[in-house]
């Protein structure tokens, strides 16, 4: 209570009307009016700014003490920086998705509270003491592991993105949703800490007939997918921590799989079971869902890889330009194939391109930040970015993708995004011929 006491003394001295207090009080009044204006703008005149030349009230009072917010939270003014959903997209919130607010994020790491989420039977809240991981099937020594057991194994930390293959799925037929958050927000990137899946598989002893793994969650969907054993042994992680803290329940607490560079739904959350077999399982998620319907009526299954993709995050529909002048075009690029090698940016709808600057670190199967200075003359413009990865794969246009896959594909739309800039600086999601 002591810090609050100090605070109340400070405030009451303001009210007392001493010369210092009165100036402070006026400043506080301006700040209160200002904060009201965020919610519902009053009809009267603009309040006087608390900034120069006036001294702001927060500069003339004592602030809150440590552990005032024992976990911490964003500034009150950042309250709108949240995951959001599209209510009309799904039958209910329990089998749905939320999108990361990419327009308000900086750098390549997604804060844990803003990491996009996808649940198939709602978010379970799991007691870590009760949670078990069972590994069995074509193994020498089937095993049940507690969380305490798992944390004892040698640990690894790596930065990887996870993208839902339906990211951008609303845009296969046409530009529909005028938003960076809703068109690209099913991608996030974090530092994951856990144990290599290969370490766990060595521990149980893989039998030579084993070629596939079935991974299964402890959620109500008992969500499961088949993965090739090669991928499991290559770079998969069984993780318990994200960006330095335990996983959030939305992200699979206490345990999830991370399958670097592969579509989000194989990164099974609330991981409870790994079974090795000689063939894939053809589960519902890999037959009726997460298969790509082609224009000739055939469907592609086991299309796990996330191809190279990029998007300009500034400017974007949520962050328009404020008048002609010098700007820094900013964006993110990624590829499931490894590292981003190059990103080009066009301001004339793909007629001419300039190579953007990639910012360190450029990591394998992680978000990579790019920027390019741009002198905007106030005339209409069409902004695009194009990622090229270390295999030489070039991010396609939506027209090129449609030529191959039609418009019924739903998943794996990694096409170039076009932002239309209007003379007033506003930004719209468009598609070009």
């Amino acid at each position, binding site marked *: 209570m002591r810090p609050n006491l100090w605070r109340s003394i400070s405030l009451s001295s303001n009210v007392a009307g001493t010369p210092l207090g009165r100036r402070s009080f006026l400043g506080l009044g301006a700040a209160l009016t200002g904060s009201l204006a965020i919610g519902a703008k009053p009809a009267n005149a603009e309040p006087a700014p608390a900034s120069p030349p006036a001294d702001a009230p927060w500069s003339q009072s004592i602030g809150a003490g440590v552990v005032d917010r024992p976990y911490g939270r964003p500034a009150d003014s950042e309250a709108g920086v949240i995951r959001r959903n599209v209510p009309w997209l799904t039958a209910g919130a329990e089998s749905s998705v939320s999108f990361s607010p990419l327009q308000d994020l900086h750098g390549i790491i997604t804060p844990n509270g803003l990491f996009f989420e996808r649940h198939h039977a709602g978010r379970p809240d799991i007691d870590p003491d009760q949670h078990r991981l069972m590994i069995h099937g074509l*193994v020498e020594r*089937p095993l049940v592991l507690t969380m305490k057991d798992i944390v004892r194994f040698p640990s690894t930390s790596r930065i990887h993105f996870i993208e839902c293959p339906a990211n951008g799925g609303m845009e296969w037929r046409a530009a529909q949703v005028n938003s960076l958050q809703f068109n690209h927000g099913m991608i996030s990137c974090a530092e994951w800490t856990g144990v290599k899946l290969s370490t766990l598989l060595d521990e149980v*002893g893989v039998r030579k007939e084993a070629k596939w793994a079935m991974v299964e969650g402890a959620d109500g969907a008992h969500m499961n997918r088949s993965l090739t054993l090669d991928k499991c042994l290559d770079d998969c992680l069984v993780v318990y921590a994200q960006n330095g803290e335990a996983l959030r329940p939305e992200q699979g607490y206490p345990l999830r799989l991370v399958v670097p560079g592969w579509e989000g739904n194989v990164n099974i959350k609330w991981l409870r079971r790994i079974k090795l077999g000689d063939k894939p*399982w053809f589960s519902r998620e890999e037959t*009726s869902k997460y298969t790509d319907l082609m224009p000739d009526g055939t469907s592609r299954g086991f299309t796990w890889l996330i191809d190279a993709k990029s998007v300009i995050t500034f400017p974007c529909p949520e962050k328009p330009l404020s008048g002609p002048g010098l700007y820094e075009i900013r964006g993110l690029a990624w590829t499931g194939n490894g590292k981003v090698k190059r990103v080009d940016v066009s301001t004339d709808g793909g007629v001419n*391109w300039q190579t953007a600057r990639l910012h360190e670190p450029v990591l394998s199967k992680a978000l990579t930040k790019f920027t390019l200075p741009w002198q905007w003359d106030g005339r209409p413009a069409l902004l695009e970015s194009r990622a090229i990865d270390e295999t030489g794969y070039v991010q396609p246009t939506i027209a090129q993708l449609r030529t191959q896959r039609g418009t019924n594909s739903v998943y*794996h739309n990694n096409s170039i995004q076009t932002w239309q800039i209007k003379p007033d600086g506003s930004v*719209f999601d468009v598609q070009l011929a």
Partner: protein
Amino acid sequence: MLAAGTFASAAEPGHFGYGSKASPEQIAGWDIDVRGDDGVGLPPGSGTVKRGEEVYAEQCAACHGTFGEGEGRFPKLVGGQGTLKGERPEPTVGSYWPFAPTLWDYINRAMPMPAPHTLSADDVYALTAYVLNLNDIVPNEFVADRTSLPTVKMPNSESFIWTDPRPDTMARPCMNACADPAETRIVSTAEGKQLTPRTTGPLDTMQSK
């Protein structure tokens, strides 16, 4: 190895020795997966179309409709044949799913949505029979069990390609005069479509129109 005599080599299972050996009871409790293409993992039990109709009415109809036609945005289970190449494909059990045992597995692992994995094996067999029957894939007298389900031929089973043919676009990274500026025109815009929930302030509660 610091103590080769104490520890097994890393190549042998149990090097770390953490955890406990999974007992047959433990494995049996969680070993619920059923392989789609050949039905490996299907348990004993059976169910008729008639019984399936009763269970369906109680457990499924509220979301999937009385005859599998779907409710609101909950999935249709029936119909859609002939739509996969069209403007509005309707992927259902009948029109899309390649393997019948997958239906048993999914009902068993995830349905009914508010109480997943609570139905008996017999009831799951019955529901599987009923949904296949609604799709005209099996006759009224069909009895679903571990032997019959893998033999059911699903209408769309030959349409899946299980190897990934990507990369399927081969763009070249042209840098200058890559297109005719006159041909570079907007053919589609999200402006004015009124589909975008707001991205400032509190969560939007906009519902479907």
